């Protein structure tokens, strides 16, 4: 069995033994029960809340818009859940006594790094499928309306999560701390990312003018993955079944690749 496969399987085994998936599934289950109850009694409240966040469009396709709003409403908690679930995997692998043992085995560092990465992504895929699949089933069961485009939340969340995972893998090279990885990525997801996105809007540009901050924000906006925009694209995809402008997706993919490459190179060269 190759080193990559062994590390990938071990990461899944670690998640199972640490009861991470059980805990997350329990949380997701509770949330699904809550959603089922709310949809049964006051589905409009959630729908309006979700839709308002990303702008309720006018027009006739209200159902598509409602489900798109719900998709985005569930998107961020799902994403953060995956980040918190897997934030400890890279720091734990690099603890003293543990990393020495792994590196002394006849396995390349890149295989080790990639195996761990793939393991985390698989855990996220499992959690994401359960979370969004569960929400889809509950919504369909309670409302009798089935909009398969809602399931685009699964690949969309996994896509954004992969960008965050590259950041966590890189941060762990410097800090080896679960709390630091989780805090920085959460901070980016809920504060820095939206801030950079806002700064790039027409209003943001007007407000910032020619200040030095404007230049810095522009650089960061282009270097860091634009995960905030994937939420808006998700809304569009669920509502219309297609995406107009794929620039943000391409930027997230390239940025994630670059971050992965930097993380892998750092891991490859680092002295433990």
């Amino acid at each position, binding site marked *: 069995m190759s080193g990559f496969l062994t590390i990938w399987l071990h990461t899944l085994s670690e998640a199972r033994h640490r009861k991470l998936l059980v805990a997350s599934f329990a949380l997701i289950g509770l949330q699904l029960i809550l959603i089922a109850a709310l949809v049964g009694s006051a589905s409009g409240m959630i729908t309006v809340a979700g839709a308002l966040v990303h702008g309720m469009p006018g027009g006739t396709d209200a159902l598509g818009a409602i489900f798109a709003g719900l998709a985005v409403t569930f998107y961020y908690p799902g994403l953060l859940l995956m980040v918190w679930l897997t934030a400890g995997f890279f720091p734990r692998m690099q603890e003293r006594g543990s990393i020495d*043992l*792994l*590196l002394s*085995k*006849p396995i*390349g560092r890149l295989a080790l790094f990639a195996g761990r990465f793939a393991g985390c992504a698989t855990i996220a895929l499992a959690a994401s499928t359960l979370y969004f699949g569960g929400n889809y089933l509950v919504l369909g069961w309670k409302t009798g309306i089935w909009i398969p485009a809602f399931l685009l939340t699964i690949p969309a969340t996994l896509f954004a999560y992969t960008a965050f995972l590259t950041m966590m893998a890189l941060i762990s090279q410097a800090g080896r701390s679960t709390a630091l990885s989780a805090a920085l990525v959460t901070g980016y997801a809920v504060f820095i990312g939206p801030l950079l996105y806002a700064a790039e809007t027409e209003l943001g540009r007007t407000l910032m003018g020619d200040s030095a901050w404007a230049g810095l924000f522009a650089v960061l906006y282009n270097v860091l993955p634009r995960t905030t925009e994937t939420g808006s694209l998700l809304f569009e995809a669920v509502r219309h079944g297609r995406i107009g402008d794929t620039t943000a997706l391409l930027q997230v993919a390239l940025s994630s690749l670059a971050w992965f490459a930097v993380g892998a190179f750092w891991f490859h060269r680092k*002295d433990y």
Partner: protein
Amino acid sequence: MTEPSPIDVRGLRKTYRALRRSKRIEALRGIDLEVRPGEIFGLLGPNGAGKTTLVKILLAIGHATGGQAKLLGRPVGDPRARRQVGYLPENIRFPDFLHAEDALHYLGRLSRMSGADRKQAVPAALEQVGLLERRTSKVRTFSKGMLQRLGLAQALLHRPRLVLLDEPTDGVDPIGRKEIRDVLVRLREGGATVFLNSHMLSEVERVCDRVAILDQGQVLRTGSVEELTRHGNRWRVAVEGDPAAAAGALGPSATVLEGALEVEAPTVAALNAAIDRLRAAGVLLTEVRPASTSLEDVFIDVVEHGREEPK
């Protein structure tokens, strides 16, 4: 074809960089070292001497700044060399959620062992270190000594040709230490080479064929334990009765030291002549052996002198 040296190090240097040049640390300053096949080699040195840095470079856990290092004839960093190497790191940490045998299966897979090989080797390795009865216990329930034993088991699991052990008896009780020493001797008898990094000088003295003393990133002395501890051409002769009276029979070539005679004899013939003179004087001998100092005394002496000499 001759067997390559298990460890061959030439002019190895390691500098830990820092932003300020003055803060840079030269952990290894161009060391040369060769470990021969089938021997137990001990690396001694005070804290911060560079011992662990050397071991980490050999296993590609760290990277050298300069020089060359080969493991079983291959450059360090080549994963193929590590297939035949077992390593017990200092402060080993296992995945604590696994059972002992599962941990060994996992690490055996990383060592490229087949399922069939592991099925045989895992119980055997656990038995070898006295943990067979705890095979289904979670690693998190193990004491420090038991973790060390499990660490030794994983290092030996794939029958490596070279075993590197970093403080293997740390936290192990005296009986466990004896058992670990026995394992090391059995490894040597089986043809494996053992590289031992330890502070426990008495243990190194007991099991090692050769040792190197490292301090401040330099090898100060290398040799067999006997070569390092041998006290010139002197012999220790224990006698019944007053050693001072017996010394009179030998004249200035004998002195009294710690309740016995210490006799200067450059050859075996000269030693036998001295013994004949003692016997002729009616002295009863109880022991004759080469005079030596302990490895600890040698170690302290070498390190202190090494620090006094200008670099």
